[in-house]
């Protein structure tokens, strides 16, 4: 077991955002965090990133509590990408990667930037300001930043949101390929069911701050008697029951 989330709870004043959730992610596996908007996915990711202090509960990494790590000790092993978080717009792609490479203490930084930019096909707009890029280009740069430190744990929040099908497919293929070549444990929050089916080894379904079901895609589809993950998601999201 690599990451274990135990009774994780977050209460904002009188609003219960995350309610005693429990799940684990095995090393080098990808888990999908699914649920309707406002179900607590981003708050859960925020707690795993150390950006949000849990009200109660624990996050264990290799059986060691997240709280016992120093900030830089744990964050150098993690990374995160989301279309809702951007890189400095007035800096070029190259400058942004250089700065984040330095912040993550990457050795042989030029080589790493070269490698990742070739892989993600971002070299042809390397000297353009990040704010001038299209959504697809920004998305790939954001992914390059998220992978610059070859993280052991990668958190992705809707990585292909607002991308056209072609670029979306490129990103999904890249993540799939990256997973097969590197040792990385991924937590993927997404509303794209085909993406989840393609990338995730198992799924955690959330609703109103609680985990309502979990398992592999096949298990969940079969269990709920549906034809695909999207139908299963709709059933779970609209249902009042826990499973």
């Amino acid at each position: 077991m690599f990451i274990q989330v135990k009774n994780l709870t977050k209460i904002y004043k009188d609003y219960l955002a995350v309610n005693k959730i429990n799940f684990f992610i095995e090393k080098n596996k990808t888990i999908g965090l699914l649920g309707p908007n406002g179900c607590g996915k981003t708050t859960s990711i925020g707690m795993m990133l150390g950006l949000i202090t849990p009200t109660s509960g624990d996050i264990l990494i290799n059986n060691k509590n997240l709280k016992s790590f120093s900030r830089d000790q744990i964050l150098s092993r993690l990374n995160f990408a989301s279309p809702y978080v951007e890189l400095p717009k007035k800096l070029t792609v190259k400058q942004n990667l250089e700065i984040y490479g330095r912040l993550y203490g990457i050795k042989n930084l030029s080589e790493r930037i070269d490698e990742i930019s070739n892989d993600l096909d971002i070299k042809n707009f390397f000297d353009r300001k990040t704010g001038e890029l299209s959504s697809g280009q920004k998305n790939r740069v954001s992914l390059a930043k998220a992978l610059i430190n070859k993280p052991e744990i990668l958190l992705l929040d809707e990585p292909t949101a607002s991308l056209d099908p072609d670029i979306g497919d490129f990103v999904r293929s890249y993540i799939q390929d990256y997973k097969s070549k590197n040792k990385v444990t991924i937590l993927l929050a997404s509303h794209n069911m085909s993406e989840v089916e393609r990338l995730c080894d198992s799924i955690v379904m959330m609703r109103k701050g609680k985990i309502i079901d979990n398992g592999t895609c096949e298990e969940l589809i079969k269990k709920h008697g549906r034809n695909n993950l999207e139908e299963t998601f709709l059933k779970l999201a609209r249902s009042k029951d826990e499973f």
Partner: protein
Amino acid sequence: MNFSKIYALGLRHLYLIMNSFPRVLDLIYWPTVQIFLWGFISKFFTLNSDYYSNTVGVILTAAILYDFLFRASISFNMMFLEEIWSRNFTNLFIAPIKISEIIVSLTLTAILRTLIGLVPAVLISIPLFGVSILELGPPLVLLLLALYLFGISLGLFVTSGLLRFGPSFENIAWASLFFLAPLGCIYYPIDILPNILQILAKGLPLVHIFEEMRSILLNDSVNYSNIFISSIISVIYFVIGIIVFYASYFGAKKRGTLINMGE
């Protein structure tokens, strides 16, 4: 303390300046306008006031020192606001950089921004108005240090407010220094203030700094105890600023505002 990471964060702001000529121009423009404005006022007072008749440029020197404080504080705030405006806040706070390293980096980089703006203005004042802040002699270094530390402390208070209240606190960032200016006795002696305000004013390093500046320029005498007091007060504000910043950071983590910070 990892100086490579401190440098990296500084580089982020250096690139920001280097990538934009209008940004450089903006940094230089306001201090230069200030120098011109106060230079002419200073010249007029010098010709028409007994108090200033013996010393050319007391007001202009005060204006330069006050602008130094203003630029230091605003630079610190601006660099923090840049992260909010560019929606880079989350990326910054999940990078393996300590909060202390962020503070040190912003503090050091603010010097650069301040000097880019102020050095041309200071140089202009020499041929144009015959005023050089170097006339303050070696105490100038200590006065600038005390001012800088206080400017950064104000920056820390404002950025703590941004962490606590979010981008809506931005207006306070701009107004923060104007709140203190009347009590700072920048252009007039402390005796002008009512007694009750004099007590409050003495709690700020500005009064001691600007009193000392006037003393050096008008009486040609240096009172190091004034400089020492101003430095001690600045250090106290700086330490309080750091404590408040940390408290705001941990508060923001509790409220979950770090993950959504942005315009």
